[in-house]
């Protein structure tokens, strides 16, 4: 396929539209309607429990961090607080953007706005980018949320374990949004009716950061920034670690989530932080199913999916060599075995873009 062009205005984006790839129907495992209805059912209680626990822990850890500041004893509390601020906010943002976490809409919206702020995303922009990520998952030039572009830039990946690239790109964009609304690229997926909202949200976020910095200057201490802003850097590693596993090393330009997404079994703490998004093939195939029902969905459809990785470490052991190989062989990707019970991958499904799913590129 040659050098990929990830720009929404580039040749690959154009080719994906012209070839019909963007309008193509995605593969879905057959699930009886009654079973699916039961899996899709919404409930407030699991997310209320998890949210009270999350915000309660954040208050406790930040309180301990402040009380012990500036001694080294405060460090473990900041590390714990940071992961909840800089990583759990990613999964809360994600699930609430789908509106599936809670049954009650205002609860989804409230947690969505708070977590958007913490994870440094404009809540009005990213709702739309994520819709595109679901319609056109890992279609080059069309999906604005491709975490690992090819050829892999390893330095960028590593810096982002500390949120460095995200934060560096976030603030100029925040100021631009606050002053002039969405950028030209953002306008390709945010409808015009929402442009004013993008600007308003950016102004609110900017005002909070400005107040925090002003307080830090007034106190002559970075303590206020340890609570607001900096945890997006020192606590980002967990969401980057789990986020890379979602699609890293797998196929792009395909319309079967079994080929471009990865399910990984994880320990209970990571699953709490990640809100069960480790069942990522399942989530992409059926985004209507709330996070708390994903383990049940997994049990229902696993016979039709590649075997999940059994741990985060095993997932990385599979993905990392593939990412390294993509450094010099851009078209390479991992094509995982399906169990004999699964419907086979339909190669004819994937002939839209020349070079896509070229057999020699896959293993």
């Amino acid at each position, binding site marked *: 396929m040659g050098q990929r062009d990830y720009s929404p205005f580039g040749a690959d984006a154009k080719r994906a539209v012209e070839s019909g790839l963007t309008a193509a129907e995605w593969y879905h495992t057959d699930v009886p309607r009654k079973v699916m209805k039961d899996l899709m059912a919404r409930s407030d209680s699991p997310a209320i429990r998890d949210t009270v626990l999350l915000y309660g822990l954040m208050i406790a850890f930040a309180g301990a961090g402040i009380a012990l500041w500036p001694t080294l004893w405060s460090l473990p509390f900041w590390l714990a607080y940071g992961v909840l601020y800089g990583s759990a906010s990613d999964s809360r943002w994600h699930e609430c953007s789908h509106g599936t976490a809670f049954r009650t809409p205002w609860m989804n919206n409230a947690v969505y706005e708070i977590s958007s702020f913490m994870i440094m995303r404009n809540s009005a922009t990213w*709702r*739309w980018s994520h819709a595109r990520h679901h319609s056109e998952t890992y279609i080059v030039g069309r999906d604005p949320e491709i975490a690992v572009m090819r050829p892999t830039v390893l330095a960028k990946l590593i810096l982002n374990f500390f949120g460095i690239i995200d934060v560096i790109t976030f603030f100029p964009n925040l100021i631009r949004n606050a002053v002039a609304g969405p950028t030209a690229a953002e306008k390709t997926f945010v*409808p015009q009716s929402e442009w004013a909202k993008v600007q308003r949200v950016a102004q609110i976020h900017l005002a909070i950061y400005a107040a925090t910095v002003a307080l830090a200057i007034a106190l002559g201490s970075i303590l206020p920034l340890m609570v607001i802003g900096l945890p997006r850097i020192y606590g980002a590693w967990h969401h980057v670690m789990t986020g890379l596993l979602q699609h890293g090393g797998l196929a792009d330009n395909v319309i079967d989530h079994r080929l471009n997404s990865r399910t990984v079994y994880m320990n209970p703490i990571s699953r709490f932080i990640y809100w069960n998004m480790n069942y990522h093939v399942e989530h992409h195939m059926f985004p209507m199913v709330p996070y708390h029902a994903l383990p049940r969905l997994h049990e229902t459809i696993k016979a039709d999916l590649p075997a999940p990785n059994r741990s985060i470490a095993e997932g990385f052991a599979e993905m990392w060599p593939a990412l390294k190989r993509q450094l010099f062989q851009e078209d390479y990707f991992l094509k995982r075995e399906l169990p004999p019970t699964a419907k086979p991958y339909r190669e004819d499904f994937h002939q839209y873009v020349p070079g896509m799913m070229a057999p020699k590129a896959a293993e």
Partner: protein
Amino acid sequence: MPWIDACATDAIDEEDLIRFDHGGATYAIYHGVDGKFYATAGMCTHEHVHLCDGLVMDFMIECPKHNGQFDYRTGEAMRAPVCVNLKTFPVKVDGNRVLIEVP
């Protein structure tokens, strides 16, 4: 506009919907929580996706692709990413049959 026999009343569970295709068009027929039947266009107004795989909650239909929501009684778009309202169609029940009036 003609009334078309779409399905039996017991073909749709309460708080659920089915897809109904007629004359080259596709519709969604709902059995509401109030026991009444409703009909809308069968495709989401955001992208080309059938609503029949979505979730009915109270008077809301949630699209299976990006969780956009419509009030299926009025067709009103209620939750992003849907912005354009859904067309609705008159429905009546005749005996144990559901009929919809289509263009």
